[in-house]
């Protein structure tokens, strides 16, 4: 872990103790990943529209990795015809 921890000690602790407030669980996060990603691609304010999802992505590195990859993959694909 030490190799990728931010040097600022407060940020280190913030990361260790995770986001304050309510958040989704991993299972709910999986169910909503596709909707969340498409809203992001549409430029929607997802942090406002789906705050519990955003909080979970801030606190769960595995779900964040999954989300980042889905977002990146969809971005590489050609748009479907309207």
């Amino acid at each position: 872990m030490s190799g990728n921890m931010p040097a600022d000690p407060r940020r280190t602790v913030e990361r260790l103790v995770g986001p304050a407030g309510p958040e989704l669980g991993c299972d709910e996060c999986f169910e909503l990943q596709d909707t969340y990603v498409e809203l992001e691609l549409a430029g929607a304010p997802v942090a406002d529209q789906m705050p519990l999802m955003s909080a979970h992505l801030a606190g769960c590195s595995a779900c964040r990795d999954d989300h980042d990859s889905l977002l990146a993959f969809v971005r590489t694909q050609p748009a479907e015809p309207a």
Partner: protein
Amino acid sequence: MTEPPGAGAAAGVAGRPGTVPQEWVSRLSCTGAERDVAVAELHDLLLRAARFEIRRRRVAFPQLGGADLDDLAAQSADDALMSILRRLGDFRGESKFTTWACKFAIVEAGAKLRKHAWRGREIPLTSAVWPTLADEAPSPHQHAEAHDLLQALREEVGRLTALQRQVFVAIALNDVPIDVLAERMSTTRGAIYKTLHDARRKLRAALAARGLGAAGEWR
């Protein structure tokens, strides 16, 4: 067919040109040659998604060879396809079908990669990394602040339940992937994250009670 939220401006994932979400469901739900074609198209898409995920993550797992990675991608696509066909009725059209489907492949590939990379490795449940965190602080002031914060955190981690402490130390301190830990503990990723969430809530409350950080900062 109602356009799903956000679909208008979102870049989609190409399946058969012009295929709208419920067309995918219809084609995958029918029988005969039409279904076989749809399954093959979907598998091809899932394989591309799985390979994409493995290419993104492989730098973190240099010990894995190309044949291992190809095999993991193929297994991920196969397993994702099975999950999708089993859960076809769960698709509500709130996103494009292809986006919904690709998340299965990406999650499968990521989990398989992490589990493969951790196969045979011991899960670190000790807190041996604590001293190095403070040592990384760039200035004497920050070093002292880091020392106080981390010392408090370390003490509070010692007050967690045994399970909460193991989960916190493994995931938050030692970067053990949550699905790897879940497998070793014979439970689910969701259950492990719930334990981590409870542990973190206790720790935030304890730090706030000690007056570390602004009022309510870590509540």
